[in-house]
């Protein structure tokens, strides 16, 4: 077991945004968290990554780092690709004196090769396309060999071909690192092409849990509405 979330509750002021949810992800498995905007998907990721505190519940993780790939890459625009990827190795207290410049160059080159972008160490984020920025952010996330990788809408804002490429890399990274991965998305292709299991959130609670195939069967009124992108159904879009 790499990550287990038990009875998680999160409130913003008095509003409950995550309402007693539990799930787990094993090593070498990809869990997709889906749902309409405002359903609490990204909040779950931010809680797991430690960016925001939660009110009650438990998050159990195996030893090792948790990495996160942000929706719009969140690359440091004042640093080049090399410094972006090696940031944790250069700045983190427990790692910063561990690697020589030669080691860093080797590690960065390896990670860039893994995401198919060899030789772009000296480029700045502004010189890269959206898809390339996303792949650099993948390389930055895996630089410390994390055992859990969180993806926040990894294909948002990308064209269909770039999305397919990103989805392939999510699967490839899982296979290479044997990490537990959680992908927050509302894109069907990302769900069907990457996920082993899916949970669907609505109003902070889990309304479906199963495989991507089961999601597509449309037997559950929530998943049916989600898959068909219908406005009629149990879920109401918040204006």
């Amino acid at each position, binding site marked *: 077991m790499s990550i287990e979330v038990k009875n998680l509750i999160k409130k913003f002021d008095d509003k409950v945004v995550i309402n007693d949810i539990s799930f787990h992800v094993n090593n070498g498995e990809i869990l997709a968290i889906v749902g309409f905007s405002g359903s609490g998907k990204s909040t779950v990721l931010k809680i797991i990554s430690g960016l925001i505190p939660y009110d009650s519940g438990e998050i159990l993780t195996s030893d090792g780092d948790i990495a996160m790939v942000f929706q719009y890459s969140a690359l440091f625009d004042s640093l080049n690709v090399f410094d972006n990827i090696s*940031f944790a190795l250069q*700045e983190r*207290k427990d790692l910063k004196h561990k690697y020589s410049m030669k080691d860093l160059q080797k590690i960065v080159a390896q990670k860039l090769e893994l995401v198919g972008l060899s030789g772009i160490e000296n480029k700045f984020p502004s010189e890269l396309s959206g898809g390339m920025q996303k792949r650099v952010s993948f390389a930055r996330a895996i630089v410390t060999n994390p055992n859990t990788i969180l993806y926040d809408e990894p294909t948002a804002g990308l064209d269909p071909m770039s999305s397919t490429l990103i989805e392939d890399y999510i699967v490839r990274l899982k296979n290479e690192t044997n990490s537990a991965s959680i992908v927050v998305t509302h894109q069907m292709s990302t769900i069907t092409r990457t996920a082993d299991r899916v949970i669907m959130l609505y109003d902070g609670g889990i309304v479906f849990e199963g495989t991507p195939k089961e999601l597509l069967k449309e037997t559950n009124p929530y998943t049916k509405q989600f898959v068909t992108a219908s406005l009629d159904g149990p879920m109401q879009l918040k204006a």
Partner: protein
Amino acid sequence: MITLAQYLKRSATYKLFTTLFSEVVMFLDTIGGIIQLGIHFISRIFKDGISGKELAAQCERFGISSLPITLSIVGMTSIIVSSQVANEMVKQGGADFVGMLMTILIVREVGAVMSGFAITSMIGSSLASELATMKVTEQIDAIDVLGVDSVGHLFIPRVLSGILMMPVIVLIASFVGVLLGALTSNLFSGLSYRAYFSSVWLGLYMKDFWVSLLKAATFGGTIALISCAFGYNAKGGAKGVGIATTQAVVWSFIAIVIWDMVFAILFFF
């Protein structure tokens, strides 16, 4: 039929007091937030140490890039003041004290305060917008997720560069201000350089010098801390960046005036 409580709640006085109360709460909340980040920043200096490379880069940004605008503002203020003061003093028979007056004015007040305003406009706004942009584009979250303390990483070099570079800027600006005072007095009032500079030393005490440097360091640290704090706490998109930058500049201006008053009371009252 409405109750007395309902009637009072509708009154203009009630609304005025609740608005004032919420403004005071917001004011204290902002100060509390800045102090909290300041304490966090200090604790990280001892935990993380100081990166010389990053500190040098920020010192260059704080000191060297801001010098032309700071010198221009302090210099022009000196020209304005001396052109008005020197003429009157020469007329009233106080020519021997023009240099002294200008020196006291520049070293004690104009040098540090006008430099503070110039630095706030140029560097403070740039620090606030830089951090605010990082915040709204999740770059600060990325720093934290990568296991690096974002307050320590961003605040330490920026605030320390403010503390270190501001005295240097004020020293140079004050020197230029005194020189321009001499030039202006000579050009507009016919005061000789010798008369001007012979009285400069009458008004220049070591205490003024050290207080000015201490004040400059305080201004520099305060401007950098406030600007970083507002940037760090920015919310929303482009609008949030704009709001954070404006607030950083306004609060830095207010802080400069308050610190100036504190220094005047502590050292010259």
